[in-house]
């Protein structure tokens, strides 16, 4: 079979050259030289929340009821939720603001796409970098939880891969959505959605405080599933809802990847 025929037979012939690793290598090199400060600050954010809310506020809240019904400290209650929030924020930042800037201002993708790279190489590389960063944060935060004595079961280590799954869902969907946005004003809508989701997704108190219609609404939002999933893992208590939470993110990731791939053509190959 001649080379052109081979390329045609690949679904993503003009979109993909199987070289996402070059995009990843570039990201790591750039991080080493300039971005490490941003990365460090992203790690400290949930840690500061955990200290202030968990330890500070926790001292007047006392113990609360954990997912398996036993009493746990307030810090142990909110720590998995903060981890989910941090996975969300990191993934969304990387896949929205970062991509938006590189696309519209740094013209980085423009340069990449004049090489053998296709848009799908770029998208896969960037999403991988977002997930790698999410995994580093999750590992660091889990270690902090361990040091603070908030980890009581080996199950808690599974919070790290679960965080990566949460990040994957947000990163793939976020990149797809960013492809529609053209101005800074539109980018602000993303924060407008993230902040309430952070505050109200049963992050700091149980869902039961809300009236039923609002409960339904929050349960439809992605972050709540992440918070519940990590909270269950943190104490090693699983229910019938656990696969639902995981399934939610699998579907979200698949939908996000589909959207992103469909948008790549109109984004890059005008």
């Amino acid at each position: 079979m001649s080379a052109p025929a081979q390329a045609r037979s690949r679904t993503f012939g003009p979109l993909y050259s199987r070289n996402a690793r070059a995009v990843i290598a570039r990201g790591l090199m750039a991080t080493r030289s300039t971005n490490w400060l941003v990365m460090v600050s992203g790690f400290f954010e949930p840690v500061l929340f955990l200290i202030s809310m968990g330890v500070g506020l926790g001292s007047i809240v006392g113990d609360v009821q954990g997912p398996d019904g036993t009493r746990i400290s307030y810090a142990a209650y909110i720590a998995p939720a903060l981890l989910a929030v941090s996975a969300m924020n990191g993934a969304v930042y990387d896949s929205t603001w970062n991509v938006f800037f590189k696309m519209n201002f740094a013209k980085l993708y423009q340069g990449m796409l004049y090489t053998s790279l296709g848009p799908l190489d770029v998208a896969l590389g960037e999403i991988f970098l977002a997930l790698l960063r999410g995994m580093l944060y999750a590992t660091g935060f889990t270690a902090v939880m361990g040091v603070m004595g908030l980890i009581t079961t080996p199950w808690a280590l599974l919070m790290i891969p679960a965080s990566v799954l949460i990040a994957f869902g947000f990163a793939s969907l976020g990149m797809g959505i960013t492809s529609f946005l053209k101005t800074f004003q539109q980018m602000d809508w993303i924060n407008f959605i993230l902040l309430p989701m952070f505050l109200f997704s049963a992050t700091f108190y149980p869902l039961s405080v809300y009236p039923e219609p609002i409960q339904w609404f929050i349960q439809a939002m992605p972050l709540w599933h992440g918070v519940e999933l990590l909270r269950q893992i943190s104490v090693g208590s699983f229910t019938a809802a656990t696969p639902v939470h995981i399934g939610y993110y699998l579907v979200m990731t698949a939908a996000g990847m589909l959207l992103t791939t469909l948008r790549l053509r109109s984004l890059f190959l005008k």
Partner: protein
Amino acid sequence: MHNHALTPTGTLTGGPPNGTVISAENLTKTYGDVAAVDGISFAVPAGESFGLLGPNGAGKSTTMKMIGGVTRRTAGQLSIMGLDPDTHGPEVRAHLGVVPQQDNLDEELRVRDNLLVYGRYFGLPMSYLRPKADELLEFAQLTDKAKSKVDALSGGMKRRLTIARSLINEPRILLLDEPTTGLDPQARHILWDRLFRLKEQGVTLILTTHYMDEAEQLCDRLIVVDKGRIMAEGSPAQLIREHSTREVVELRFGSERNATIGSRLEGIGERLEVLPDRVLMYAHDGESALEQVSARGLRPLTSLVRRSSLEDVFLRLTGRSLID
């Protein structure tokens, strides 16, 4: 690994030495109702330096983007070394070097790293890239800047780095979109010298420009493009011979009087072009035309006799200046 294996070898090494590397037929790109490129056809043989000359918005950059396979054409045929860039973008670009209109160097990487990382995008191995990067830094006269940050470079240096970067995959075709726009005269001449050397090495150069002197310096052959259409095609000398006279007299009577004085110049030279700021008089012999102007008792504020240039060709063909 040099990605040559991705393209049929026949089109790369087999063909005749002056085989066609780019052929476009009725190439068209429309955005909504607007035709940015409106059915242009041309062919470029290997090793030629081919120019697209035209004002801003003529469709030059859009044509370049279609050649690179980053913009899909609306209609027509386009073949780059025998491949269709719409369906074989990555393979076509493996043999292209691209110098875009605006530098898009990676500001987060240092100078030498820009070359290495760009080479990785082509899937080239580090064992090839390390010596190649050093060679290109030498070529671009940036060896002592290897470890500098990109934003510490001057405009001319950035441009040279962009050109060095475009050569990392040893391209057979180099696309240069307004390579010297915004550079000072000295930086332009250094750049032209580097481009000459590439041409000597047999690289096919495709360049867009709205500078006539640049086109005259660098292009073996060019097409004059306006509003997405080809107005004329030929070598710079040929175009001047066909569409202009040997010399031009530029007369300035002051912006008030240029228009009114036009009628009193009738009959001198072969053709008269009255612009808001000056009157252009096309003549075979500029000095004698100027003497006739004096003989009619007309005293221009300034006068200048010069050779015809592509600017005059463009003015003749489109009725407009290249740079508005």
